[in-house]
């Protein structure tokens, strides 16, 4: 029996679902091993009977919570797809800013026309069984995750830092190139694609389980970053996680 799979999205750019579609380019057999019953971005058919739900996107308004819970009720396995669902992603950047101010800055006197609250990862709303990290997700990792699900186990993702991937690919370290990188505290699994492309890691796969935050900040400082720049670097994808580490709640 092929497992029935559904895809959902909340606040996101849909890039992760697009990456799922792209996975088909190398793995057309994906369609032979799972049955996709819902995927609004790519299909009109819609089935409500599914065992595995992949959810992309952060929860950014109270009214989305009910739908997210509904999916949790139905699915045996819920997988957070991508940084928005996993970490709150870039949507959480604004969590450090006073909510009212953000609304007003963007919407002026119409700020009350819409509903919003601080962005949060799926795990802040429901229990999540597995995560496919990244912004966007990595195609290979998605295929591997499906393989693991078919084997009856939860998808395993690396819990070691990116530097490992980076050195396995023999990149010259960004720090030695006079630049900066979040690799030492970021979860590996992307084959260090950013350092390989000449950009320091931005942390899109989230922090490793026990990141040494004061040491990474020290390294960034030594490489010429100001406190503001460090804060910006650590907030692109990591706002929600770092606020949690610091025990700060959104304003």
């Amino acid at each position, binding site marked *: 029996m092929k497992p029935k799979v559904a895809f959902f999205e909340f606040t996101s750019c849909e890039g992760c679902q697009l990456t799922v579609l792209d996975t088909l380019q190398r793995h057309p057999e*994906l369609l032979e091993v799972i049955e996709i019953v819902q995927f609004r971005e790519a299909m009109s058919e819609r089935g409500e009977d599914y065992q595995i739900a992949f959810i992309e996107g952060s929860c950014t308004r109270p009214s989305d919570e009910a739908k997210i819970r509904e999916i949790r009720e139905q699915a045996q396995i819920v997988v957070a797809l991508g940084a928005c669902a996993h970490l709150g992603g870039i949507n959480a950047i604004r969590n450090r800013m006073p909510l009212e101010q953000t609304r007003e800055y963007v919407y002026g006197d119409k700020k009350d026309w819409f509903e919003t609250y601080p962005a949060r990862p799926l795990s802040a709303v429901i229990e999540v069984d597995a995560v496919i990290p990244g912004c966007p997700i990595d195609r290979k990792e998605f295929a591997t995750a499906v393989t693991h699900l078919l084997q009856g186990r939860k998808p395993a993702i690396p819990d*070691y830092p990116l530097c490992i991937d980076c050195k396995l690919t023999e990149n010259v370290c960004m720090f030695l190139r006079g630049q900066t990188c979040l690799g030492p505290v970021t979860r590996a699994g992307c084959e260090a694609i950013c350092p390989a492309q000449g950009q320091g890691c931005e942390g899109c796969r989230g922090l490793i389980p026990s990141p040494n935050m004061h*040491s990474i900040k020290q390294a960034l400082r030594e490489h010429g970053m100001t406190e503001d720049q460090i804060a910006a670097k650590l907030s692109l994808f990591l706002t929600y996680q770092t606020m949690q580490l610091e025990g700060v709640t959104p304003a």
Partner: protein
Amino acid sequence: MRILPKHLLQAWVERLRVDHRVVAPRESHGQYIFDEITSADELVLDYHSSVLPPKKYFLPPREDLFTFNAKTMEMSPVIEEIQPTVIMALHTCDLHAIQLLDRIQGTGHVDQHYQARRRKTTLVSIECMEPCMAQAFCKSLGTLSVPEQFDVHLTDLGDRYAVDVGSDAGEALIRGMGFFWKPSDADYDRFNEVMAGKWPNFDYRLDCDVTDLPNLLGASHDSALWDEIGERCLSCGQCTKVCPTCYCFDVVDEIDLKLEKGKRVRVWDSCLLEKFAVVAGGHDFRNSRANRLRHRFMRKGKYQLEAYGLLGCVGCGRCALSCPAHITPIATLNTLNERRQASPGESA
């Protein structure tokens, strides 16, 4: 000893390329990477150390061990039959490291995957005349000259190289090639002069004698220094990836979406990572950055020596260069030494 005039170096390498894959350091963003060269004029002999050591040619970062069909249980080993390979311009520290790896992979159960590549590879090393980088401390560890086992070793005499051959495989790269001359007395004089002249260029950087390292580390097991540097360590593992003598690995299975065809792959692992020593039930034998770092240093300066008769560090300095937290063997060992002297008999 033989002599290779410098202007014939490229011709020799071009000749080697006829029946060998030739690997040499290549510049990349200010660092060097060992890579296959496609023409002798790409050859660089004068480089500071490489990002990854040449061990990657024997023990690749990721390597298939065998392929299988999970349904039929058919399995077949993947023993890579590499092309005959020459690695050019190894520094002597890296040569020492390969000697240790050879010993480890050849002890007890022989690792055929390593052997298959190693057998097909001939090493051309080069005498270092200056420290390749500030972090190197080869002189302190006795790796500043060739080890017992080597194939071909070059010493720069100015306009020519002195060429020493240490093995049959090495001899095969030289004999009948026509590029090599018999040395004259002047060559020998020049060689002696160069060799004597190079030593003062290198400093002893370790404050204790290298033979004292196991004692020093043994006495320092409970040193507070481990906690101090453990505070700084990011557990990023770079130090182990770039180390020419690290060889720990993890094994993972990969299988296709139809759950049929797959392979078992080994990937470099690192004892600095959390979970490296976790066992069922969650007990972790090295549960802090401090004691994982300690284990690494113990391996380098004591355990490997006791297990294989060779030190686990060759002083190449790569880990010191890569560490974002500036944790270096020299500073660590010298601090331990200082503290031992300050309070002999007690734990530093």
